[in-house]
């Protein structure tokens, strides 16, 4: 199952706009998909007998740096076909912490996404629409800021205790 075949399945179903770009150089080729189609694409990749990506390995949220915006990367694996696929989504460069960059949650497709998305929200500050229980997972509930952002400033104190 190569990338062009997967791409054909998706464009046939959802139209040409669902895939923004593809990365063919490098060791692991990746599809860059449009954020609006992510949930539909994931459902299709999970259910289609030809792709059958039933195992979600990893969700990584990334801050590419100021002006370049955020991204979420999905690593899928198919157990019967023994294949892997990388999906990437680019998100807006919303640095203001009152409006987080947002993307649809895929936790209805793979339950693995539940905790992975909570971690991405916790550390990078990406909001997942439709997530059943989006709260911080590793840091305390009252933590300020998102530590894996490039513009994160270390806090001076926590509950009045100097920590720097």
């Amino acid at each position, binding site marked *: 199952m190569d990338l062009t075949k997967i791409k054909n399945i998706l464009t046939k179903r959802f139209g040409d706009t669902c895939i923004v770009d593809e990365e063919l150089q490098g*060791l692991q080729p990746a599809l860059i998909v449009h954020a609006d189609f992510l949930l539909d694409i994931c459902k299709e990749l999970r259910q289609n007998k030809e792709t059958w990506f039933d195992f979600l*390995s*990893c969700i*990584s949220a990334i801050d590419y740096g100021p002006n370049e915006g955020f991204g979420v990367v999905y690593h899928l694996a198919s157990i019967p076909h023994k294949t892997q696929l990388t999906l990437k989504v680019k998100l807006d460069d919303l640095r203001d912490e009152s409006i987080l960059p947002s993307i649809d949650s895929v936790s209805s497709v793979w*339950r*693995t996404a539940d905790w992975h998305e909570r971690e991405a929200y916790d550390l990078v500050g990406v909001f997942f629409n439709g997530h059943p229980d989006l709260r911080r997972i590793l840091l*305390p509930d009252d933590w300020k800021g998102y530590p894996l952002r490039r513009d994160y400033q270390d806090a001076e104190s926590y509950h009045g205790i100097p920590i720097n």
Partner: protein
Amino acid sequence: MSELAPEEMIINIGPQHPSTHGVLRLEVISDGEIVKEVIPHMGYLHRCFEKHAESLSYGKTIPFTDRMDYLASMNNSHAFVMGVERMLGLEKEIPKRIEYIRVLVCELNRIASHLIAIGTYGIDIGAFTPFMWCFRDREHIMNMLEWASGSRMLYNYIWVGGLFYDLPVGFEDRCEEFVAYFKPKLVELDELLTNNQIFISRTANVGELPLEVAINYGCSGPMLRASGLKWDLRRVDEYSVYPEIDFEIPIGKGEMGKKGDCWDRYKVRVDEIVESVKIIEQCLERLQKDLKRTPDFDPRGLVPKKVSPKAQDYYIRAENPKGELGFYFITDGRSDIPRRVKARGPSFNNLSVLPELSKNILIADLIAILGSIDIVLGEVDR
């Protein structure tokens, strides 16, 4: 609190409780002895691995990977190093002797990790002796790995492009002695715990995990195999020298109860120890015959002075004792510091299935299920 029914009560188990295997807090909504819902709270051991990795060069990050799953440090650094080597295009050039030493120490570490899983599981259920026996045998492995690397648990032994040191002279012989000593102990352990009627009654038919649920929650390693799927990344991805080595992949068969119950998960680990012993024997044979140490062999010969892969991103996955350990690297091609390293810990995903497994069960069974998942909080929290 307002949503609780009058007969319901919230009980906190942990974060300081031996049966949570570390600093994990389980918020249990219970009705008498019956568990209605479990909400795990973690993060007490969060040490910002990913943040550290963004400010350190690859070689300096290896000790941090050791501290993730601190019961299987060799396997962690092996996965990390393989990822970096593939990005550098080095992985085909690594000498066979180095690869065999890596597999040898990783499998020793896998046995040590499974011995802890089995021993502490015995304690969770109420059997103290297996714990002492497992720790006694594990101590031999710890001593050997300390001899090789200089450290008892956190080794920093596997480096990008090679090894810290070659094996010490006489290591292979001592390893053979250990294998000869250890094989009868496994039979004893089976008599003591695996076929113990009390142990079977506590674990069989408890916490049954159907295969599709396991896959949907991203469970991997012994958790997934106990549900009946032959899925081992050592065979699927065929990394390192595993294709040259002969071993079986044990799966759960539901011998004592239903497929995918706690006893199956326990049994898969016991069977994996037997397979790891087989792998160790094959490694030792190669290391003592055609891959003998020679005076001019330099385990650091290929270690690059500066590790700076070209701009790319790469996801490496490898079979840790607990399951699929993944590292996702993003590099910019200029510096020797990665732009992003994301770690996917197997325990993190295996633990996420606990609330699903713990609906309308007894509190005592909750402890049995949690023990059978075999989590390491160092890796859940990273």
